[in-house]
């Protein structure tokens, strides 16, 4: 029980991740799948940010009156990069969806299956 309490961030992240995964797997609409993917991304980013948290930590801003303990700055940098990557993937996916819509006339996977 104690483990669960101390790792509550883990649990939240996994839960959100699973929500996204559920959408990705179950929804037939490509756009919704992309949304699911975005939710999963959010879960992971949130988790990484929490991983950088230190008990009673302050933002790691160096200045004349900066007193530790600092929260680890690295996760934030990582998540920024991760968001860039996520955005680029989303962009590419949306572009592809537009193309699929234009060429196949639908964005519903079950309908696309019939088109084939």
């Amino acid at each position, binding site marked *: 029980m104690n*483990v669960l309490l101390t*790792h509550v961030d*883990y649990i939240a*992240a996994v839960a959100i*991740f699973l929500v996204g*995964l559920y959408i*990705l797997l179950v929804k037939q609409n*490509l756009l919704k*799948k*992309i949304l699911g*993917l975005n939710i*999963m*991304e959010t*879960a*992971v980013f949130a*988790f*990484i940010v929490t*991983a950088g948290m230190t008990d009673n930590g302050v933002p790691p801003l160096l200045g004349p009156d900066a007193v530790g303990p600092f929260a*680890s700055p*690295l*996760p934030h940098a*990582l998540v920024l*990069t*991760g968001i860039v*990557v996520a955005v*680029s*993937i989303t962009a*590419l*996916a949306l572009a*592809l*969806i537009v*193309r*699929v819509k234009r*060429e*196949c006339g639908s964005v519903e996977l079950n309908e*696309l299956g019939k*088109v*084939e």
Partner: protein
Amino acid sequence: MSAAAHGLALVVLVPIVGGALIPALFRRFPTAAWGFALASSALTLAISISLIRRLLAEGPFSYAAGGWPPPYGVALHFDRFGAAIAVFSMITLLVLIFSRRYIPAVVPIARIPLYYALVMINLGGMNGFLVTGDLFNLFVFMEVFSVSAYALVAMARGPQAGLAAIKYLLLGAVSSLLVLFAIGLIFAQTGTLNMADAAGRLDAAASIVPTALALGALTIGFMVKAALFPLHVWLPDAHASAPAPVSALLSAVVVKAGVIGIIRTLQTFSDHGSLQLMPLQSLLIWLGAIAVLWGAVAALVQSDLKRLLAYSTVTNIGYIFIGLGIGSATAASGAAVHIINHAVIKAALFLAAGALIHQSGLRHIDDLRGLGERMPLSALALGVALLAVAGVPPTAGFVGKWQIGLGALETGRPLLMGVVIVGGLLVLTYGVRIINTLFFRPPLHVRVVTSREAPPSMLAAILLLAASSFLLGLAGKPMLDFVAPAILPLTDTG
């Protein structure tokens, strides 16, 4: 510092920067884009060869980007697995040569510079993935080559390409996220992103649950990338509908990233005292064995040549995972060599198939009857590569199968050896079927009769790759000797 000292950075930067420049510089000049891409990939190849020479002279070495020492800075690390970049650069170079005449036929003219850009960026991502010593950069480079791969699949004309690309993207993105999640977990446990560093600290981490979770997430994530059964479902669609050179790149190079990711994972977690890797390895063996048989049987019933080749990739990935799962020195080194050999063979297969399909306009196997008489060299190359992929000695495919089979025996798994052999036999069955169709059956389709041999640029790439897929078999011993030191950390777990 001289250029040579920065080689490790250059081998990543040259293709990425070169690729990024192409759309900017050559929007109007597709031909020049080809030349530029070719030059930068040749440069990459040259750099990677010089890196290998240094590796042989000095042993594994690291490079701190921007001068920050590890574990703080972004570390690049070059070991014997990293040497695969030379092969990947070489294959990319040949794929580019092949693309010169092929791509204008399948890609709209406006997108041609984009195509070359993506190929180069893909190479850069692969190289980065191989040489990075840092977990987060591992993810970033993985995304670089993944995103470029999604886009490359979408390059071709027609509705199938877009759909296949988006399917590939969805699964690929999920797997990337799993990997990222795992990286986050490891960071949370150890507070470092340097792989070597993290490996050392994992043992000290108190709780086993997050570690196991990280291991599971990494494994599943890389399994998707590597298309290991049962997570291979995206592969046949993507590889079959992409343009042939892209299929070659995907099958030969990109899926190998997943395999190398698994190797890195196993290496990272192998020092962990309380976490047993044995069940995971058994799982890999089982999945690998099923993949071998499933891929081979599925390939047998395909009528589309490129789809068949895609399933052959599933089989071969299965072989590699059996070898890794066994984990003995013999089997693991065999699997490592098979990564390279399969890359060469599969590139030869897809390019040769691409040439046949391009010249005849047909892609169903039965329609290709008699094409061997019209396109003897391409068909011969395809034949040699098929024999190689089936593991007929002394071709390149044999090396891995022999070592893996021997490893299975050494660890007391004779049935597994049987699977290795039966899989080879099944592959040979469809290989023979294709050879038979090409050479020994009268033409069925009128287009076959009017087909002509592929142009020299395509032929050069195909023949070189086919010859390599034969000759690498004769170089089995030196290659095994080369990977042996790199394999050692793996074998401790076996």
